């Protein structure tokens, strides 16, 4: 295994990949629940916390595509952009794509949080888990990129 370049935080790839794996697992679960009747959501179905109300709401679909499936797509692509090889790459396109993809993911999170709070009037804990993971992933990518830029622009010590 190739060692991380000096300018790249050593934690960048493992931490972001771990977050991607967690987000992907929950998104796959929500997608399975959407497409099958045998898998049921382990979640309250009454009160403010009501996963079923959220996952069966009109807002659970975007242009005919279940948002749970969009979550799977998001984390699969994010996984590719967070591989060690992608992090080691100094290609501007890769770095812009990684940050851009995270911004898109955060945009979707904000849209869904708004929908839960103001349109559906219920909160899904599984969806919230994905939202939290996405926000942490967004933060990790931004901080890692910032530290990398900083290390590259700083003069070498000694």
């Amino acid at each position, binding site marked *: 295994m190739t060692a991380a370049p000096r300018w790249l935080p050593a934690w960048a790839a493992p931490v972001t990949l771990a977050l991607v794996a967690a987000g992907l697992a929950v998104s796959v679960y929500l997608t399975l*629940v*959407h*497409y099958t*009747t045998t898998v049921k959501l382990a979640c309250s179905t009454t009160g403010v916390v009501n996963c079923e109300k959220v*996952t*069966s*709401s*009109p*807002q*659970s*679909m975007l242009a*005919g595509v*279940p948002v749970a499936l969009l979550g799977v797509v998001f984390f699969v692509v994010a996984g590719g952009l967070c591989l060690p090889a992608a992090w080691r790459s100094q290609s501007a396109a890769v770095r812009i794509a990684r940050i851009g993809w995270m911004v898109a993911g*955060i945009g979707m*999170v*904000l849209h869904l*949080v*708004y929908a839960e*709070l*103001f*349109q559906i*009037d219920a909160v899904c804990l599984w969806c919230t888990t994905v939202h939290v993971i996405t*926000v942490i992933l*967004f*933060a990790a990518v*931004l*901080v890692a*990129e*910032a*530290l990398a*830029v*900083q290390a590259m*622009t*700083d*003069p070498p*010590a*000694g």
Partner: protein
Amino acid sequence: MSKPKSRQQRRAQERDRAARLHSRPQPSSQRPLVLAAAGVLGVIAVIAALVTVRLTQGGTTGAPAKPSGRAPASVVRAVTTVPASLFNLIGYQSALAPLKRINGKALQKDGKPLIVFVGAEYCPLCAGERWALVAALSRFGTFHNLGATHSSSIDTDPNTATFSFHRATYTSSYLSLDTVELTTNQPQGNFYKPLEKPTALEQQLSAKYDPNYIPFVYLGSRYIVDTVAYNPGILAGLTMQQIAAAMRNPSSPICQAILGTANNITAALCQQTNGKPASVCSSSGVVAAAKHLPA
């Protein structure tokens, strides 16, 4: 000994000086980290603001009811072009109330079996029924000028968004359709403002099979709809666009209720059209529903 030592000292001094220079704060190199932190904090602040506004707002939020008018083209398209695969996926839904079996006359109009709808724009049960009826009848023909309305604001399931058949027309090679919307959704006196007058036939059929109740749908000689098959409360607070979108989501109770009801109606209509069109009447969803029609 002193001369080399002095050179070493000078080199050491230069190294120290260079190290001191490099260890000074570099404002420009800190900028990426500051920007990253600002971005993350900005996202957290937006989410916190949304939660705060929601908590301080309290109560439920619902889409305001819209006045009657033309149905949005996107909604009409979504409801009248439901894929056969989705109808088949929903198939028969056991939770729905069944159609009512009758021994009636096979009425005809323009040489085709006649279907009759009697309802009113104020009526919340009619609001629920129209979604399924439009979806089902669109498998046999085409609606034009479908209206958009909502049930009464002061009745049960208030402001349920739905279509209106007022001024709508229907063309089909297989069926004829007569509809009457008795009143608007606007209160007037002790009831609601009259909208359309029922024909003698419409009055006669509803009086015979479902007196004083709406919705009433005469599905030909064998079946009628005497009430909506599902609880229209599941449509509460939703706009027409939201209901149409939910109808495309097979895990949504709205999709299961409306398309399940539409499959039951379609199965009954297929008995009037002698199984035509075969692509509709032989589809698995309709065949499944037909097996559960009351004998």
